[in-house]
């Protein structure tokens, strides 16, 4: 009797595609802070649209379950929940809805965290290492389920304020970029 031995390597091959759990503990480039150029508005001076430059680093973070769950931990460690609660908003705006004052792409959120925003969002530049900023931003995007279901957190360590991120309905990507008038005043 012939056993389909070849099935074994084939099954292993399937497993090797599991990128969602890949754990990169050490930052790739120790000395470099990512420097993305993001436009907040589609308006620009001159005849050409605003120049943008992204490194593509965001994709690695928001499709990776490990990075997102680390971001979830850091979100409370660095007291983001003090102002934004568990995403529903408090003195800061809600992060799980589809309204983004400063853009909802991961690069926009990284910029929000790193530089701060005028109406009361503090800047965390120099206070959070670069990769950790990306992890938190990836987690923020999972709150409204802008991240793939497979990578979104399925449980949290403390009390559950609502269904886990993984069980929330996926959101449509909001192109973001322009500042609505609501952002002109403190919320």
């Amino acid at each position, binding site marked *: 009797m012939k056993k389909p031995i070849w099935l074994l390597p084939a099954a292993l091959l399937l497993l090797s595609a599991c990128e969602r759990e890949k754990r990169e*503990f*050490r*930052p790739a480039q*120790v000395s470099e802070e990512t420097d993305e150029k993001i436009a907040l508005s589609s308006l620009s001076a001159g005849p050409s649209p605003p120049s943008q430059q992204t490194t593509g680093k965001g994709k690695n973070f928001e499709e990776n379950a490990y990075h997102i769950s680390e971001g979830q931990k850091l979100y409370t460690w660095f007291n983001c929940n003090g102002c934004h609660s568990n995403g529903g908003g408090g003195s800061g705006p809600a992060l799980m809805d589809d309204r983004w004052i400063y853009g909802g792409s991961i690069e926009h959120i990284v910029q929000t965290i790193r530089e701060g925003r005028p109406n009361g969002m503090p800047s965390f530049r120099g*206070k*959070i*290492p670069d990769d*950790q900023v990306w992890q938190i931003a990836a987690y923020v995007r999972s709150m409204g389920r802008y991240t793939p279901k497979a990578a979104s957190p399925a449980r949290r*360590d*403390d009390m559950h304020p609502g269904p886990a991120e993984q069980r929330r309905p996926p959101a449509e990507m909001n192109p973001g970029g322009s500042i609505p008038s609501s952002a002109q005043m403190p919320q």
Partner: protein
Amino acid sequence: MGARPFLILLSALPLSGCSGWQSALDTHGPHADSLARLFWIFLAILSTVWIVTIVMLLLALRRRREPGDDPLMTHPGTERRMTIVVSSAVALTALIVMALTIVSYGAQRVLFASRDGPLTLLVTGQQFWWKVQYEDASPARTFTTANEIHIPVGEKVLIKLESSDVIHSFWVPSLNGKLDAIPGRQNQIEIQADRPGVYRGQCAEFCGWQHAHMGLLVVAETRQDFERWRDGQISAAHIPDDPEEQKGMEIFMTKPCIMCHQIRGTSAGGKVAPDLTHVGSRQYIAAGTLPTTRGNIAAWIVDPQGIKPGVHMPLVQLAPEEIQPLATYLESLK
């Protein structure tokens, strides 16, 4: 040449783990004593039972019935003897089970005897280290430290166990059995050391990548030494006057370190990672992973993920010339 020397060596190997600073059979307190006694009593009785059973089995196999005997024939004499043997074996079994239950109950009475000691600690298991808070009626005498517990010799110490993330288990084999630290609830365990010494403990419930590197130390010392240590720990961190240490302090205060770590008496107020106020006074850093030396502190800061992959301390970018002052400063925090 046979495999015998090899086998002897192999059987001696497990025994080599039975003494030293982390062994349930090398006991140094009443709780661990009663557990070890229980272990030896069970071992003696159950191995006797096992040996008797095997001997009987071998005898029964050798003294088989003669072939040709009619299997349906009964001899009243043999029947009676068999009844006696079987019923006394059953009675003996019941007796042994009962006796062991009573012995085990006796040990539990020691383990769970009282629930208040002169000293109460709140120990919180975190991935992958232990947060230790010394409680006191007066708030000014409470303080927080990590991975190293000092206790006065001969006194009961009550430990309240909590967890901040997943299930851990607190186990100092020379002093007591294991007890789980479970998120959302508090368990209590008591330890007491009868002799001064350093006893190692270990997380005993798999909790993630660095479970194996989640150790702790219990240092038992005389009451005077303990009081001296406690007064030192309560005080705020020493303010450096050496220029190198001052530089290190400045680097620490302007880096992400302060988001996670606390150094009492400075502006570093993070509460999610080990309190570093007296990190230099502890024997080990990173939960029993590296002895506290300037070199090891530097190695840890430069590459925490290389020493404990998956640990929740990220790599913080530092210039090469910043590392030495930072390590010097941290080592000076006695």
